[in-house]
C-alpha cells in the first residue's frame, strides 16, 4: 500500500503536508513523531475515518478511495485505535461480528458466530471463552479481540495506534509474538509508537513525521534511535535529563496501614501499606498494571472513603481526608493517569481549567474575575510553554503534552505541599517529557514532596530519589538511589509465584 502526497487541513491548522508513506506486505512499518506531528490524522485517512483530503491512496498499484471505515475494511484495511473500540457489555463473539452477525432465518445464529470467533482467537493463540463479556477481560486480552476482529475482515493492512501504551511487560511480549505471526501471513502492519526501544524489536521500516511532514524514511537496521529522535524533534537533545542533587527535608507525608477492600468480593486492592515521603524528595512508585498504583493514589486522595482504612499524616499531624476536596485543602495535588477522563474539562478553556482547583484565587469581591483568571493562565502558559493561540482556547484542541501542562498548571496554582503524579508522561512526546522531568526536579528543589508512579523503569530511575515497589496491593521492597538497577526493581515488582 502506498499513500502519495497526502495533505489535510483543519480550520486554522495544516495537519498533514504532502506526506508519502509506503507499506509492504509482510513488513512492519513504524510511524513515529511527536504529538501533534500528524500520525493519528494520517492513520485516520488511511483507514477511511476522514474522507476529504488531498493526494491519493494506492493499494496494489490501484487507486482507492473510501466512503467510510467499512469501505476501507472491505478492501482489507483495518485500524486498532489507541482507545479500544469494543462494547464492554457484549461478549467477545458479539463484538467480533458486530454489525455483520451471521443469520439464520433472520435471527442471529449464535452457534456459528461463536464457532467462528473461537477459530479466530485460536489462530491468535488464545483460547478464551468467546461468550465472556469484554468488560471482564484485561486490556491485553481486549486488544487480542480487536486483532481478531480485524482478521475476520481478511485484513491486509493492519494499523495499530500505540498498541502497547496500556499493556504490561508480559502482555507486550504476547503482542509482539502475535505481530510476528501476522507478518508471516503476509499482512502489512503500520505501527504507531512513542517508545523508541520498540522500533528495533518489532519494526522493519520507520517513517518519521514532524509538523505534518514526513521527514525521514528508512529501514530500521540502517538508522540509530538517536538519529530517529533527532529527526523527530528537529534538533539534538544533548541535554538529556540529569537529576540535580539536593538534600531532603523533614517527613512531609506519612501513610500508615492504608487498605482498600474490594466491594462485594473478598480480597483487597491495597493491603496495609505504609510509607513516608520527605519534603524535597521524589519517591518513585513502581508496579505493573493492576498492582494497585492508581488505587493507592485515589485512596490517599479521598476518593474511596468507605471501603478504605488507614491513617495519613501531613507534617506530623494526622489529617482526615474523606473527599478530594479535603485532600486539596490539606495541600495535596493529584495528577491522574487518564488526562481526558480524570483531569480536564475538555470543552473548557485553558484559563478555566487552570483555575478549576483553586477558583478562590481568582475571586474578587465574591465574584469570579475573568481578568485575574486570564492573567493567571498567561503566567503559566509562558512558564510551562503551553503551545496554544490564547488562554481561551478549549483544551480539547491541544496536543497531549500541552494538555498535561495545563493539568500541571492547575495544581501548581493551588501551591501544593504534596504532589502525586500518576504516569505523568504517558502518551506525550519526548520534548514535553523532558520538560515535565525538569519541572518535577525543580519542584522538589523548592521543597515539595513528590510521589511519581510510572511503568517505565528508565524514567522512574532517572527522576526518583527513592523507589518503592508495589505488587498485588502490597509494598514489596524499597531502594535508595544508589541501589537502583533495573533487574532488582523489576524483580521486586513481579508476582513471586
Amino acid at each position: 500500500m502506498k499513500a502519495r502526497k497526502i495533505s489535510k487541513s483543519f480550520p486554522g491548522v495544516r495537519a498533514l503536508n504532502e506526506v508519502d508513506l509506503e507499506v509492504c506486505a509482510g513488513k512492519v512499518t513504524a510511524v513515529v513523531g511527536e504529538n501533534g506531528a500528524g500520525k493519528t490524522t494520517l492513520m485516520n485517512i488511511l483507514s477511511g475515518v476522514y474522507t476529504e483530503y488531498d493526494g491519493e491512496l494506492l493499494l496494489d498499484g490501484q487507486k482507492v478511495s473510501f466512503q467510510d471505515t467499512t469501505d476501507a475494511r472491505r478492501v482489507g484495511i483495518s485500524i486498532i485505535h489507541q482507545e479500544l473500540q469494543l462494547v464492554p457489555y457484549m461478549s467477545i463473539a458479539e463484538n467480533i461480528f458486530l454489525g455483520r452477525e451471521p443469520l439464520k432465518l433472520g435471527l442471529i445464529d449464535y452457534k456459528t458466530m461463536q464457532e467462528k470467533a473461537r477459530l479466530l482467537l485460536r489462530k491468535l493463540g488464545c483460547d478464551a471463552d468467546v461468550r465472556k463479556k469484554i468488560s471482564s477481560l484485561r486490556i491485553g486480552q481486549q486488544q487480542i479481540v480487536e486483532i481478531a476482529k480485524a482478521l475476520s475482515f481478511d485484513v491486509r493492512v493492519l494499523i495499530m495506534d500505540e498498541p502497547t501504551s496500556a499493556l504490561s511487560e508480559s502482555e507486550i511480549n504476547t503482542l509482539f509474538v502475535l505481530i510476528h505471526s501476522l507478518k508471516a501471513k503476509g499482512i502489512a502492519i503500520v505501527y504507531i509508537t512513542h517508545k523508541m526501544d520498540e522500533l528495533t524489536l518489532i519494526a522493519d521500516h520507520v517513517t518519521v513525521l514532524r509538523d505534518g511532514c514526513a521527514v525521514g524514511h528508512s529501514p530500521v537496521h540502517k538508522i540509530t534511535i538517536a538519529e530517529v529522535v533527532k529527526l523527530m524533534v528537529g534538533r539534538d537533545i544533548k541535554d538529556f535529563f540529569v537529576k540535580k542533587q539536593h538534600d531532603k527535608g523533614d517527613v512531609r507525608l506519612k501513610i500508615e496501614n492504608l487498605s482498600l477492600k474490594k466491594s462485594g468480593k473478598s480480597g483487597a486492592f491495597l493491603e496495609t501499606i505504609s510509607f513516608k515521603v520527605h519534603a524535597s524528595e521524589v519517591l518513585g512508585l513502581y508496579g505493573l498494571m493492576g498492582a494497585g498504583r492508581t488505587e493507592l493514589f485515589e485512596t490517599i486522595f479521598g476518593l474511596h472513603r468507605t471501603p478504605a482504612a488507614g491513617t495519613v499524616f501531613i507534617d506530623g499531624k494526622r489529617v482526615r481526608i474523606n473527599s478530594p476536596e479535603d485532600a486539596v485543602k490539606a495541600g495535596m495535588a493529584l495528577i491522574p493517569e487518564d488526562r481526558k477522563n480524570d483531569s480536564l474539562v475538555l470543552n473548557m478553556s485553558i484559563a478555566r481549567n487552570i483555575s478549576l482547583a483553586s477558583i478562590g484565587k481568582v475571586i474578587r469581591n465574591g465574584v469570579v474575575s475573568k481578568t485575574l483568571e486570564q492573567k493567571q493562565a498567561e503566567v503559566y502558559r509562558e512558564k510551562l510553554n503551553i503551545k496554544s493561540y490564547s488562554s481561551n482556547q478549549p483544551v480539547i484542541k491541544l496536543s497531549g503534552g500541552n494538555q498535561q501542562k495545563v493539568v500541571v498548571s492547575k495544581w501548581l496554582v493551588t501551591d501544593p505541599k504534596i504532589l502525586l503524579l500518576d504516569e505523568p508522561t504517558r502518551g506525550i512526546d519526548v520534548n514535553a517529557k523532558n520538560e515535565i522531568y525538569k519541572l518535577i526536579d525543580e519542584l522538589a528543589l523548592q521543597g515539595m514532596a513528590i510521589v511519581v508512579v510510572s511503568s517505565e523503569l528508565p524514567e522512574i530511575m532517572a527522576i526518583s530519589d527513592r523507589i518503592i515497589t508495589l505488587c498485588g496491593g502490597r509494598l514489596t521492597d524499597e531502594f535508595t538511589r544508589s541501589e537502583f538497577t533495573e533487574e532488582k526493581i523489576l524483580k521486586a515488582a513481579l508476582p513471586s509465584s
Partner: protein
Amino acid sequence: MKITERKFDLSVLQPLIALMLMAIAMTILSDNFATKDNLFNVARQISVNVCISVGMTMVILTGGIDLSVGSILALTGAVAAGLLKNGIEWTEVHLFVGFTLFGVIWIAMATGGFLGCFNGWMITRFKVPPFVATLAMLTIARGLTMLYTKGFPVTQLGDRFTYLGTGWFRGIPMPVWISAVVVILSVFFMNKTRTGRYIYAIGGNERASLLSGVNVNKVKVIVYMIAGILAGIAGLLVTARLDSAQPNAGLGYELDSIAAVVIGGTSLSGGKGSITGTVIGAGIIGVLNNGLVLLNVSPFWQQVIKGFVILLAVIIDKMQKKEAI
C-alpha cells in the same frame, strides 16, 4: 503549526436570529401580532416558562434532567393559595395560624426548594439517575397536590395576590418583571460565582471536577434546589394569574421547558449552553404558540408544528457543530 483564532462564536446568536425571523414573519402574516397588547400577552405567557427553564438549564448543564418541575409548580401554587385563604387550623387546641402575602410567597419558594433538595439528595446520596428520581417526584408532588386540595381548585385569593400574575408595574406586567429579575440573577450566578463555574465544569467532566476538589454532590443538590425554588415562583405566577390553584396546573410544563433549553442551544449531555439561550428558546416557543393561535391553526396542528420546530432546532445545531470540527 499555524493556528488562527476564531473571531466570534455565533452559536448564541442563532436562536436569536430565528426568533427575530419568526417575529417578522408573524408581523407580516397577522395584523394582531405586533400590537402592544399582544406582545405583552406573549411576554406574560413566556414568563412562567422562563422561570422554570432557567432552573432546567442549570440542571441540564450538570448533565441531569428535572421532570418534576410541573408537579412542583402545582403543589407550591396549591399550598400558597390554601395557606393564604384558609391558613392552618387546629380545632383541638383552638389554634389558627393565618398567613400574609409575603408569608405564602416564602413558603411557596421554600416548598419548591425543599422538594428540589430531596431530588438532589436522592441523586447524590443514593445515586438514583436524575431521570428516575425526578420522575418519581413528578408523581409524588402531583399526588400531594391532590391530597392537599382534595382534587378541587382553590379560588378567590384576593386582589393583592392576583396582582402578582395580572398586575402591571410601570407599564409592564408583573410576571415579566419577576422573570426578568430571575433571569438577571441567574445569568450573574452562572457567570460570576464559584458555583456557577462548577456547574459548567461538572457537566463538562464530572470526574475531573471531583478530582480537582470540587464538592460535586453539594453543587448538584444546590442546582436541583434552585430548580425547585424557581418552579415554586412559577407556581405563584400561574396561580395568581388564574386567581385559582388548579390541581392539574403545570401538566406537561417540564416538556415545554426542556424544549426551550434545547432550542436555546444547551447540550443535553451537559457542560455547554447558557441561560440567555434558554430565554430566547422560551421566546421562540412563546411566539410560535401565540402566532399559531392568531393564525387560527387548530390546536392539534399546533402540537405537531411545535414538535417539528424542536427537531429543526437541534438538527441545525448539530449541523453547525459538524462544520466546526
